[in-house]
C-alpha cells in the first residue's frame, strides 16, 4: 500500500504570518489537532500542533493572553518537520511515526504539500487490515511453526467454499508454535471447525476456564 492511496488530500493549512488566534480558530472549526504551515508556494515551512498552541500563552501571565494571541504563527511553529512522499510505502510511514513519535506527517511531492497522514489514518488502516469491520467469524488454530502449514489449512478452507477476509499469524510464547487467525465470511463456522478438527487441527475458541 502506498501513502498516496490512504493519505488525506484535504489539508488544513495556515500562513506563517497569520495570528495564533487564527490558528486556534482553524483547529476548532475543522476539528483537527495540527495545522501545516505553508508559504505562498505551498512549501511546508512548519507545523503547529496542540503542544505548540499550549506554549503560546503563559498561565502565569493571563493578562497578556490577548496580546500573545496576536503573535504570528511563525513564533511558535516547529520548523524541523518530518515529511514523506506519496510513493512511500505505508509500512515506512508507520515506522517514521514510531521512530520519531509523530502524530502527523505532511506528504510532499516536488517540494509542494499534497496531503497529510495522521495517527488516526494509520490506525484506521490497521483496523481495516484486521478485517474487523467486515461481517465475519474468527477461527484460530494453534499450529506447528513449519513450512506449508498455512497452505494446508487454506486448501481445506477453500474446499468448504468460504471466503477468507483476512489472515494473521501471531507468535506464541513457544517459538515452535504459531496461532493462525482467520476472519471468514460466514455466520456458521461450525461445519468448518468440525472439518478442521477432523483433520487433527487444534482449533481455539472461547475458554470456559482460564
Amino acid at each position: 500500500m502506498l501513502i498516496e492511496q490512504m493519505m488525506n488530500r484535504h489539508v488544513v493549512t495556515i500562513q506563517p504570518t497569520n495570528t495564533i488566534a487564527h490558528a486556534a480558530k482553524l483547529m476548532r472549526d475543522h476539528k483537527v489537532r495540527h495545522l501545516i504551515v505553508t508559504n505562498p508556494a505551498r512549501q511546508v515551512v512548519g507545523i503547529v500542533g496542540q503542544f505548540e498552541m499550549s506554549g503560546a500563552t503563559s498561565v502565569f501571565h493571563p493578562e497578556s493572553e490577548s496580546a500573545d494571541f496576536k503573535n504570528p504563527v511563525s513564533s511558535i511553529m516547529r520548523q524541523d518537520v518530518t515529511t514523506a512522499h506519496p510513493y512511500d510505502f505505508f509500512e515506512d510511514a508507520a515506522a517514521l511515526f514510531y521512530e520519531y513519535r509523530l502524530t502527523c506527517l505532511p506528504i510532499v511531492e516536488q517540494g509542494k504539500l499534497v496531503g497529510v497522514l495522521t495517527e488516526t489514518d494509520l490506525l484506521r488502516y490497521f483496523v481495516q487490515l484486521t478485517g474487523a469491520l467486515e461481517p465475519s467469524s474468527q477461527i484460530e488454530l494453534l499450529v506447528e511453526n513449519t513450512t506449508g502449514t498455512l497452505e494446508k489449512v487454506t486448501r481445506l478452507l477453500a474446499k468448504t467454499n468460504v471466503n477468507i477476509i483476512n489472515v494473521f499469524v501471531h507468535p506464541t510464547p513457544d517459538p515452535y508454535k504459531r496461532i493462525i487467525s482467520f476472519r471468514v465470511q460466514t455466520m456458521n463456522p461450525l461445519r468448518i471447525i468440525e472439518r478442521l478438527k477432523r483433520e487433527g487441527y487444534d482449533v481455539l475458541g472461547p475458554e470456559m476456564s482460564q
Partner: protein
Amino acid sequence: MRPAYIFGENENSYRFHADHPFNPVRLELTTSLLIASGKLQASECIAPPLASVESLALVHDLDYIEAVQAAAAGELSTLKANKFGLGTEDTPIFPTIHEGAARLVGGTVHALDLVASGKLERAFHVGGGLHHGMRRKASGFCVYNDAAVAIAHVRKAYGSRVLYVDTDAHHGDGVQWLFYDDDDVMTLSIHETGRYLFPGTGAVTERGNGNGYGYSWNVPVDAFTQDESFLRCYETVFREACEWFKPDIIVTQNGADAHAFDPLTHLASTIRTFEQIPQIASRLADEYTEGRLVALGGGGYDWYRTVPRAWAQVWAGLTREAPYSGDIPPEWIEQWQDKADLALPTRWDDHPYTFQHIPRRQQIEEKNWEVTKRAFWPFISHDRKSLYV
C-alpha cells in the same frame, strides 16, 4: 387492546435449504405452541403482505434489489452475486429468494405501521428480525433488512422516533449501520463479543456518527454469560436508553440464540432469560412509550427445544401475561416429536442441572457490568450517574 400476531404460511418461501440453520419451521413451531397452549387463536394470525420494491428501496440500493430479483430468476452472474453477498454458504440463492425476503419485510412494515398509526398498541412479527441485511449486501442469513425498512417507513409516514433493541447473540450490525448517522432512530444491541463470533463488530466504542453520535449503543458480553448477568445488563442499559432517547415506539429483535443449547454461539443463558426479556420490554414500553411495542423474531438455531418456547414467551410479554409456566401441551409434543432429532421439552422452564458450571462466572459478570456502564456513561445525567456509584 390485543396485539397483532403476524404470521402466515406464505413465509415458508424464505427457506434456503433443508440443512440451513435459518429455517421457517421455527415460525410454525412457535405459532402451533401458542395455539396448543390456548394463548392464540389460529384465526388471529395475519398473513404478511409482500413489501413493494419502493418500500425496500427506503434502505436498500435499487441495483441490489434488482440483483436479488435476477438471482431468483437464475439470471445473476457469479461475479455479480459475489459482489452482493449472494450465492454464499450463508445466503445461497433459491427461486423464491426475492419474494420470500420481501414477504418478511412486508410483515414487519405492517406490524410497525399498525402501531405507529395508532390502530394498535402492540404487534409481533415472529418471522422478522433479519438484522444483518446491509444496504447493498446479503449477510449472515439475511437478504433484506425488515426492521430497517419498517423503521424507515414509519419515520417517513409518521415521523415516529424509534428505539430498536436487539438481544440476538449476534451484533445487530445491519440495522446499526443503516441508521448510524441518524439521531431519530436509536439502536441498542446486546450480544456476544465479536472476539470469535460473527459479525465481529458491536464494540462498546461504536456509538454513532455525526448527528447520530450517541444513538447507537452496544453491550458486547463475554462468552458463557448466564441469565443473571445478561438480564441485569439488558434491563439497565435498556432503561438508560429510554431515559436518554425518549422514544415514541420500541422495536425489539428477539433472537433466541443466546441460549446454552444454541449451536452457533457461546453464551450460556437458560430459558429464564427469554421469559424475562419480553416482560422487561413490556414494562419499559408501558413506562416510556405508552405501551407501544413491536416485537420481532431473529436468530435461534436450536429449533425445537429452545426457539418455540423463547418466542412464545414474547407473546406473554406483549399481552402482559406472566411468563408461561408448567407443562408444555402434550398435543404439541405429539405433533412435532417425529420431526425433531432430540426429545422435545415437556416443561416451559429449563431444568437447571442440565447446564454446566461456569468456573469464570464472577469475572464474566464483573466484566459485563463494566462494559454495560461504559455503553451509556457519556449520555446519562449527573443524577443518574450517582445510581451507579
